[in-house]
């Protein structure tokens, strides 16, 4: 269906589109379909799903608005875009809530059918903005009666009005495919597999999608259509992947690379549930998923599985980590390998379940009773979750310790193209179980200070472990003051030894200078874009990003010391800044914005410019 248009096609370098509508309008699906198709066209992309915690909030309300932003480009990009170029607004509330984020001369595509008195009132509009000359001044507004057009296309479908109305997102999707010159194939094949047992629904959605596409072509309202050329990415096979799926794949990969069967004990919690769902489907990889009765049983069943000799994992989000805290201490005391994945969300308490945040860092590093050190890793991007999940498993089994992997709602749900590694490019994870009873002691130490791992069932090695303090080597319960002091320090040293086993902190940009922007976790993309843009403008600024947050790479202090100023942007009140100050006695500048959203790169760029001041850093 390529030759039907005569309209001029304009070539763009990059576009950011935000789809917005009611939480029942299917905006997440529309956005993810558009992203998948766009990925298949070879664009680099970043996505930001932004939806309310309510599953079906009352229709038409501002708080019920669900949005999905996709940024795609013909070059390498790192964020879901600061300000959308295009807003697809399915109702007045979606327009009202998202308009302020749109570029000043941006495109607005609105479903005019939903701009009735009731919806306008729910959105808090006194006057219909589509009829108000000043309200949308400066924007290119394309009014489309999406509901009417969808219904008339489907009047023969035999479906109920309710079911017909549910197809209108596919009309909108078809229209956007036309406008941005994308093929329908991927979405058609997705529909075919999704609704293979519901032919009427399948047919209706196909019609809606195609009607939207042809509407773009035949209507007079669009002067142009657009295209974005494929990005020049590194050679290879790619797929579009979210952080949660990448985490699940990383865990399965670690299971195969270590030869250890994977056990996941977990309790559903937003935004981490996807990992449990993905792993539950990998049964033919021998993965055992235990949907526990609560967060505590999630982690304690995993500790039991670790004791049995499995690669044990629990997945959760901040409130779940709070509940698992005591059990993490048991893992520290009994020195069993365990991976805890925290897909961070807005807190405290229930907080903002569907929004992102970075405020669990201090909880991860310090949040346990007693001296209970554990390694803490943080993934930087959606696809980086794959590699960091493997790293977490490797460190856990090598050092016989719980390891926490921090991701967040943004990289967990957001997607990016991932150059898929071949199985043989990923190194094995060596694991050794003790089997010889001769000279065996449960708390003896290897060169890294790790104790031996024994599978119950091994004859002659029967032994007891537990949460009480124990003597080194024998593991016998021991309350002796000198022994406790020794063991507290030994457990700390064991975790510090992980430093010998992780890559140095790398600097992007000049290796010394005026300003270093130091980040950790999911802010990588926004910082990278900000630093790149500032550098392009001539500012002297470099970037370093911590993926190993505790312990930090050996050269961290040295790297920080090479810059006159260090700026740490964080989606919290300065938790890494606190750690850096206390560890290295280096003062740092903070930039903290805790909105439940990822940073806009422009916010960080403005900070860079402000710090480097009129001197331009030159």
């Amino acid at each position, binding site marked *: 269906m390529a030759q039907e248009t005569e309209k001029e096609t304009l070539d763009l370098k990059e576009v950011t589109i935000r789809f917005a509508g009611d939480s029942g309008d299917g905006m997440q699906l529309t956005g993810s379909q558009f992203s998948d198709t766009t*990925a*298949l*066209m*070879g664009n680099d992309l970043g996505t930001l799903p932004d939806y309310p915690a309510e599953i079906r909030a009352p229709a038409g309300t501002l708080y019920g608005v669900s949005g999905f932003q996709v940024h795609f480009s013909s070059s390498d990009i790192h964020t879901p875009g600061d300000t959308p170029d295009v807003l697809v607004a399915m109702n007045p509330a979606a327009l009202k809530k998202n308009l302020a984020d749109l570029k000043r001369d941006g495109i607005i595509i609105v479903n005019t059918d939903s701009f009735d008195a009731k919806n306008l009132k729910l959105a808090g509009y006194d006057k219909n903005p589509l009829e108000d000359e000043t309200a949308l001044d400066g924007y290119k507004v394309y009014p489309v009666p999406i509901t009417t057009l969808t219904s008339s296309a489907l009047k023969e479908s035999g479906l109920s009005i309710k079911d017909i109305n549910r197809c209108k997102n596919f009309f909108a999707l078809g229209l956007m495919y036309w406008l941005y010159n994308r093929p329908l194939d*991927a979405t058609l094949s997705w529909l075919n597999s999704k609704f293979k047992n519901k032919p009427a629904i399948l047919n209706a959605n196909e019609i809606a999608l195609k009607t939207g596409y042809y509407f773009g072509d035949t209507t007079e309202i669009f002067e142009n259509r657009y295209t974005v050329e*494929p990005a020049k990415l*590194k050679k*290879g*096979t*790619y*797929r*579009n992947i979210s952080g949660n799926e990448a985490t699940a*794949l990383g865990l*399965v*990969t670690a299971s*195969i690379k270590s030869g250890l069967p994977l*056990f996941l*004990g977990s309790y559903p919690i937003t935004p981490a549930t996807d990992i449990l769902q993905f792993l539950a489907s*990998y*049964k*033919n*990889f*021998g993965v*055992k998923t*235990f949907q*526990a*009765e*609560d967060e*505590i*049983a999630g982690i*304690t*069943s995993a*500790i*039991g*599985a*670790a*004791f*049995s*000799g*499995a690669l*044990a994992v629990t997945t959760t989000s901040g409130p779940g980590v709070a509940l698992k805290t*005591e*059990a993490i*201490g*048991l893992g520290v005391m009994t020195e069993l390998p365990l991976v805890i994945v925290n897909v961070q969300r807005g807190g405290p308490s229930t907080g903002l379940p569907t929004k992102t945040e970075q405020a669990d860092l201090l909880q991860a590093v310090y949040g346990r009773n007693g001296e209970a050190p554990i390694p803490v890793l943080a993934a930087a991007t959606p696809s980086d979750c794959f590699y960091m999940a493997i790293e977490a498993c490797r460190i856990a089994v090598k050092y016989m310790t719980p390891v926490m992997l921090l991701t967040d709602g943004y990289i967990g749900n957001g997607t990016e193209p991932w*150059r*898929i590694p071949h*199985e043989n490019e990923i190194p094995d994870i060596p694991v050794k179980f003790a089997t010889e009873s001769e000279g065996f002691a449960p708390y003896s130490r290897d060169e890294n200070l790790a104790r031996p791992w024994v599978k*119950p*069932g*091994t*004859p*002659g*090695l*029967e*032994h*007891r*472990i*537990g*949460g009480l303090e124990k003597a080194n080597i024998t593991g016998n319960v021991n309350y002796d003051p000198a022994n406790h002091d020794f063991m507290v320090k030994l457990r700390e040293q064991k975790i510090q030894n992980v430093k010998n086993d992780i890559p140095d902190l790398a600097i992007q940009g000049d290796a010394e200078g005026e300003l270093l922007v130091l980040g950790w976790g999911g802010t990588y993309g926004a910082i990278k874009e900000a630093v790149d843009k500032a550098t392009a403008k001539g500012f002297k600024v470099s970037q370093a990003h911590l993926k190993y947050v505790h312990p930090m790479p050996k050269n961290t202090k040295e790297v920080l010391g090479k810059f006159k100023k260090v700026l740490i942007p964080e989606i919290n009140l300065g938790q890494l800044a606190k750690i850096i100050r206390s560890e290295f006695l280096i003062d740092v500048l903070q930039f903290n914005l805790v909105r439940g959203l990822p940073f806009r790169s422009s916010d960080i760029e403005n900070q860079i410019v402000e710090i480097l001041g009129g001197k331009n850093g030159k």
Partner: protein
Amino acid sequence: MANNIDAAPVKLTAKDFSSGQDVRWCPGCGDYSILAQVQRSLPEINVPKEKIVWISGIGCSSRFTYYMNTYGFHTIHGRATAIATGVKIANPDLSVWVATGDGDLMSIGGNHFIHTCRKNIDLKILLFNNEIYGLTKGQYSPTSAKGLVTKTSPYGSVDYPFNPLSLALGAGASFVARTADAEPKHMQEVIKRAAEHKGTAFVEILQNCVIFNDGVFDPITAKENRAEKMLMLKHGQPMVFGKDNSKGIKLDGFKPVAIELNDGKNSINDVWIHDEKDTSHARAFILAHLEDDPTLPAPFGIIRQELKPTYDEGVERQIAHVTEKKGKGNLEKLLFSGNTWEVN
């Protein structure tokens, strides 16, 4: 490792199950009897010592793991059944036992307990029920009698207690039994039956805390009371009790009543025949609540046994089934699955 597959299995003794650690319960504690009966019973269950794992939580009872020469894990308060669940699912070949108390299992661990029963995870759970918090020195527990005066209930507890048998039945445990520290032979029999059972086996052991709740079970288990107050259940046998088994339990509709067998009005034929495999949950609950009526004895033995597939078997079966259908997982294929595209 010596290869002794062909050698005849070595007959173990109670001594083989002793870890040699000094046992540190208070002199006279009922836990000593439980430890001794377990050590005497395990050699007869035909499971190699290295395949037995004891998991405990926190409390006096939970020190049990340290005294058993098997694999053992003394964990955290309330979580023993959840940890044991992970041990069993990860390696279904192990015989996994939980030693726990009324605070550990019925209070802080209540949620894990009911879900373990519901899922029918193949664990053997021994509840050391002394109706008191011992390790924290004498506070009322979720099984303490209403009105019990303790350090935290100086004017008497206003709590209603759990009936552990009823709770286990209600949660769907597939094996529910009761015994007492004062009944060593009976306890050994019950432990062996629990060991043979595939599924969640729950055994309540009435255990005397000699320091903080001494004699709490005397009205039932003391020598002078046991004939009248202990109903020793035997599968397929009439429920008789009393001196020379002169009394029986008759089921009058849903109401259990005690009858005299020698008064000329009733005979042994009127007595309720115990059926462990009774499909009626109602009758099992009647039995579990027998002693709610102060004129009736307390039941001991196997209240109910139901044979149904266990959770851990289900997990294994599903993995085998999916693997057969889809083929053994191929990592390269999995990584390259979904919508992929080439960049040249």
